[in-house]
């Protein structure tokens, strides 16, 4: 826990801090809607990327396995949802059935990829996962022939939103005098999922399993000599990361209502990786901060760089998209060169450990 949220030592201060954060998060969508519903959607996507980054953090941050094809699992989850809840096959299963299926299928893919490749040294694993991600994308693009499964590059549209009985997450509704738009409802759902996923990440890290992963990351030979079944543990990390990706993908499908192979290109994998690296591999809060920062960067650029260029040069010289990509690239390089532990100072993490230990 962050010192601010240290319930054990500063219960009063921590409770106040926690309450403030909670209120801010609850009020946020109303504030954002005031500026434009658009911003709520962006926030939702940012939370989705937090989920993805936290999933990848298990693989890259905890177990130290560089997965460059992580987006493939997101894609698998998204397609599972889209195929089982859209007019494409005219199947409309409820989301609480599909999401676990999506997680399971993604998990299966993770195990299928991991089982033969996890014995490879880290950099080879990275390239193989990259190849795997590309293969998945090529299949999504082409599995419209001879039987139309994925509808090829056109993608799948009219995907069902989340529904519980008559409660439809995509529709605007007034509850207790407050108007909730579709994106706002999704926001609260995503926030809930995010809190759960953060808790899972923190608990995993501080457990027998998490320590085994970190041991593998630090020195695989020594980990093995200490009795850790490295193959199984790596496979577990891979499969868990994959299922998180699968669940996020399903939610993405429902929220967007439309998916196509375009959404699952390598750049997305690299962006999620950048979030993990920027935040500090293995540092749960850092990864959340990294994901939020990088998710909002393009929007911030859109509102700063564009007008600035128009004002100075009279026209657009650099597309915000290009600047965004350049920033990702620079972030990866500079972080590795100067701050490999991420933006959150490592002293913080050390202190965090100490307070926890001394707290017993």
């Amino acid at each position, binding site marked *: 826990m962050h010192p601010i949220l240290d319930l054990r030592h500063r219960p009063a201060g921590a409770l106040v801090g926690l309450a403030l954060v909670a209120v801010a998060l609850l009020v946020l969508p109303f504030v954002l809607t005031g500026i434009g519903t658009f911003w709520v959607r962006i926030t939702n*996507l940012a939370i989705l*990327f937090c989920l993805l980054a936290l999933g990848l953090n298990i693989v890259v941050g905890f177990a*130290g396995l*560089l997965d*460059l094809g992580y987006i493939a699992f997101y894609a698998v989850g998204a397609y599972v949802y889209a195929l089982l809840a859209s007019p494409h096959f005219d199947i409309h299963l409820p989301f609480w059935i599909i999401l676990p299926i999506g997680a399971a299928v993604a998990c299966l893919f993770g195990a299928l990829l991991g089982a*033969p*490749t996890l*014995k*490879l*040294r*880290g*950099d*080879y694993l*990275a*390239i*193989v996962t*990259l*190849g*795997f991600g*590309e*293969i998945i*994308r*090529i*299949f999504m*693009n*082409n599995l419209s*022939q*001879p039987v139309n499964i994925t509808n090829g590059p056109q993608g799948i549209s009219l995907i069902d939103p989340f529904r519980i009985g008559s409660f439809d997450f995509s529709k605007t509704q007034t509850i207790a005098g407050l108007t909730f738009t579709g994106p706002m409802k999704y926001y609260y759902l995503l926030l809930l999922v995010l809190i759960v996923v953060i808790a899972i990440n923190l608990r995993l890290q501080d457990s027998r399993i998490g320590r085994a992963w970190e041991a593998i990351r630090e020195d*695989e*030979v020594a980990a093995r000599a200490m009795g850790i079944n490295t193959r199984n543990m790596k496979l577990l990390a891979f499969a868990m990361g994959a299922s998180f990706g699968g669940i996020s993908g399903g939610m993405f499908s429902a929220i*967007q209502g439309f998916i196509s192979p*375009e*959404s699952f*290109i*390598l*750049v*997305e994998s*690299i*962006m999620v*990786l950048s979030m993990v*690296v920027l935040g500090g591999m293995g540092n749960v809060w850092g990864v959340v901060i990294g994901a939020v920062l990088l*998710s909002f960067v*393009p929007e911030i650029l859109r509102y700063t760089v564009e007008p600035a260029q128009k004002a100075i040069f009279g026209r657009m010289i*650099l*597309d915000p*998209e*290009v600047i965004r*990509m*350049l920033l*990702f*690239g*620079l*972030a*990866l*390089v500079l*972080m*590795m*060169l100067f701050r*490999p532990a991420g933006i959150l100072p490592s002293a913080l993490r050390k202190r965090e450990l100490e307070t926890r230990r001394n707290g017993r």
Partner: protein
Amino acid sequence: MASEGRPPGLRSPPFRGGRSRNPPRPRTNAAATHRGPRLPPTDPSRPLDIFLQQLVNGLTLGSVYAVVALGYTMVYGIIQLINFAHGEVVMIGALTAYSVIVALTGAQVPLPALAIVLVGAMVAIPVCMAVGYTLERTAYRPLRKAPRLAPLITAIGLSIILQNLAMIIWSRNPLSYPQIIQTVPYHLTGNPNGATITNVQIAILVTSVAMMGGLLALVYRTKLGIAMRATSQNPVVAGLMGVDINRVISLTFVIGAALGAVAGVMVGSYYGIAHYQMGFLLGLKAFSAAVLGGIGNLAGAMLGGLLLGVIEALGAGYVGDLTNLCQLSGWFDALAQRCASDPNVTLFGSNYQDVFAFLVLILVLVFRPSGLLGERVSDRA
């Protein structure tokens, strides 16, 4: 984030000019996949001609892979680093040569076509060498003692930076190389519509072989080569013996980059297209080729490149026929009906061409991580 207006990203570049332009031919898939936009049509009626044509195309492409793969394998051999950004060096070579060729033809310089391409290459080579040197100096050298994943992550970052810089400098769109070299096909069989090899293909094959020969001579016949081999065996000891290992490593990057520049010019002239994203897939395939041959092994990179080119060409050429479900028409009535209207109900068409390189990569790493000629790469210590 996956909103409107994003650029196509690092996705498969248009490194397949021929396919997207030529509409699939109705009869066989083999002919439709024939690569390279400037090749004359092949008569699909003779299986031998189809096979020979795929083989020629595969060898041409494979020799380009081999030259790029040399860049990967040299760097890997000497410091066990996967220079992920090497593909981008090739891309920069192709685009630099493009600019030079366009400028020279635009200015009506009275030079023969071949000379213009050569001048393009001569400019591209030093540019790429400079890029290769900068990469090593700024991003890899400081991380030489860092955990293995760190330089790989910086390499990915550099790839993105180089691609976007190239996009800013050149264009977001694919650029057509001026078609200054007249393509001349030579027939390989008696069939006047049969398999051919063009002068461009011959030039690519010859250039590649010459460069491989030159590199082997450099590594095994010169003092620098001895220093390189010594450094790859044990950099510390090599340093103690008076080898300036920083210089040797820099030179390795620079030589690899020069090879990459030439490969870029060859790819550009062959497909007639250069694009800021062309390096990614090309680089990945060349890396697969290096792994197939045994990474760190020069002869392996050459063998792997040629093999991968041939596997890809033949695979893409025949996968459609091999997975044509109409072969099973006799077994299923529904299939027979469908095949009556459309004789090509293929499971996997030539659009799966890019999958082959990845499959080769994964299969080699899983079943023979040492590659065909190399040492073990799977984890030990």
